[in-house]
């Protein structure tokens, strides 16, 4: 474990930026977002950036392949390999979200090459939390404010800088490149403070009995009732650090075009619409139920972890306040 003074951060990013595109939190119109870093001020007073790490490793749209020609002389070209990137300033919950997506896309029978390439090209420098946001509930989902999953280097905010610790070999390598900026750490106080940070909202929630509660709950009238306020937009899924559903589509001009993959949301009414017109989830009730059961039931069954890291973005941003904390709270009420 090392100590880095706060003033050395631009030097660190600049050094790592010689080999990679660097992203860092920036303030824009009163919002903090992870943005390409070109030397601008690095935001420090935020809980979660508006965009999670997801979009940088699993972009909203990306090319699968490019094509030219028609039936006769079709030629295909695979999308170019992604450039190396270093992302500073994401939070432990978001990095844990990346680890969850990796479980689905890299550890199953199908390995998603696009995600694998970009994940391997990305170094994740995570800043652990010293302060909870009003809508943070990570601990309720089994994630800690000092969680190391998905991160390459952990930065623990200290009084005048950061305690810095590599988590992976890639993280070690990054720290070696900036060894001159690091001093021996006096103690582990900053890390301990992050590990012990209280998350007030999480203390009101439990998932202990969730599995039993959801047993036989599929047809419960609750879903119809709660779905009424859903507007079927994609805010929750697009802000979510763990939602990974995408659709494939082509765009073309004349004889040139691209096959792209882009985020989709199970809340959109045409999410499952099939050729021929059949829609297996035509009603909001079915779509809302899918969102929450996927995260609370199918994901633990298939991957051994909830599909939610408690970042609180859906809590803060859903225009109709239909979010994970509301549903967890309701589930405690509607079941005997």
């Amino acid at each position: 474990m090392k100590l880095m003074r706060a003033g050395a951060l631009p030097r660190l990013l600049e050094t790592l930026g010689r080999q990679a595109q660097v992203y860092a939190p920036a303030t824009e119109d009163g919002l903090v977002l992870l943005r390409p870093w070109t030397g601008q001020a690095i935001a420090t007073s935020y809980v979660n950036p508006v965009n999670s790490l997801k979009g940088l490793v699993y972009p909203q749209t990306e090319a699968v392949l490019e094509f030219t020609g028609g039936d006769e002389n079709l030629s295909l070209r695979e999308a170019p390999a992604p450039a190396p990137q270093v992302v500073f300033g994401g939070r432990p919950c978001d990095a844990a979200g990346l680890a969850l997506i990796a479980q689905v896309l890299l550890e199953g029978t199908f390995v998603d090459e696009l995600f694998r390439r970009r994940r391997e090209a990305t170094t994740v420098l995570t800043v652990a939390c010293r302060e909870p946001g009003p809508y943070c509930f990570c601990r309720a989902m089994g994630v800690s404010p000092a969680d190391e999953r998905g991160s390459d280097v952990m930065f623990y905010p200290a009084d005048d800088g950061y305690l810095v610790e590599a988590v992976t070999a890639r993280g070690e390598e990054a720290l070696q490149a900036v060894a001159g900026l690091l001093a021996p750490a006096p103690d582990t106080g900053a890390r301990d403070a992050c590990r012990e940070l209280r998350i007030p909202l999480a203390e009101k929630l439990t998932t202990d009995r969730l599995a039993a509660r959801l047993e036989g709950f599929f047809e419960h009238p609750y879903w119809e009732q709660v779905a009424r306020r859903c507007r079927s937009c994609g805010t929750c899924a697009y802000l979510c650090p763990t939602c990974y559903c995408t659709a494939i589509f082509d765009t073309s001009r004349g004889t040139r075009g691209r096959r792209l993959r882009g985020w989709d949301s199970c809340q959109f009414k045409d999410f499952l619409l099939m050729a021929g017109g059949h829609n297996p989830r035509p009603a909001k009730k079915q779509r809302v139920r899918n969102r929450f059961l996927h995260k609370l039931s199918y994901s633990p069954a298939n991957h051994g972890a909830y599909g939610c890291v408690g970042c609180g973005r859906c809590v803060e941003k859903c225009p109709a306040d239909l979010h994970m904390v509301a549903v967890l709270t309701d589930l405690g009420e509607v079941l005997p």
Partner: protein
Amino acid sequence: MNERQAKLRSIAGSLLAEGRVSLFIGFGPGLEPSRPVPWFAKNADEAGKLVLDPFCGPGLARYLLDETAAGPAGIVARGCDGLGLERLVADKRVGRDQVYVVGVACRGAVDPDKARRLAGRPVFGAEVNGETVALTTAGGRLSFPRSDCLLDRCLACADPSPRTADTWLEEPLPGAQREFEGVEALEKLGPDDRYAFWARHLERCLRCHACRNACPACNCVACSLDNPEWLERTTGLADHFMFHFTRAYHVAGRCVACGECQRACPVGIPLMLLNEKFMKDIRDLFAVPDPHRPQEAEPLGHFSPDDPEGWREGDETL
């Protein structure tokens, strides 16, 4: 005690008990007092949980699209909700006889995020008194200027009460004239600066469709912006311009200025500036004093056979 809320609960409870509505749309308890949620009461019990206080933020009118299919619905309506309903009725998407409107006099909704930021701690209650808002916190009551506390859309509001209601919870407040200060400031910028302004904001767009799905004027059964022949699903800046400008053109002359698009936007795009630009132009070009209020002969949605320009150039048959 909150007398308005008690009265609303009683009115909604009676409407449901008498079978005059099958559902009553209002606000109910949310995660915390500053975030009441859209609430759909089906019986007197659920009506007994209705919330009516200055934190009631989300627009409700658009829910009528879904909720009037099974029979008449009741709704508590502020001015913005009332205009939204007028829009849906004018567009023949909801029958006026399918809605029972309980009109209120709204003094503006407190933005829960602004309130928490200002107070620096959780906020349990709010009271809007003229130009100040009193916020209740664990550390006592704190007073702030109204302009710092309310939702953006409420700061520009000229419609505290709906224009018609089936019953009134309280004496309605009269409407005023909308001002377009934000648009005027933007109009003064040169084209490059205006482009930079919109590029900066629209670059954040997630294309989550929260704006469209919040909008009572975006009530089409199928939206052209879902059709890849009109708008591809790529998410570059050019696509975002296309999405938002197309949407603004589609709701031009029909936007009721409820501001719900901007409230719903998760990335803070000032969408109402686009809509207000159209409103201001309609006001000035067509001499329509209140372009956001649905009217008999809508300036962009009405054709008269006496139109000096005819149906189209060279066509004398009309």
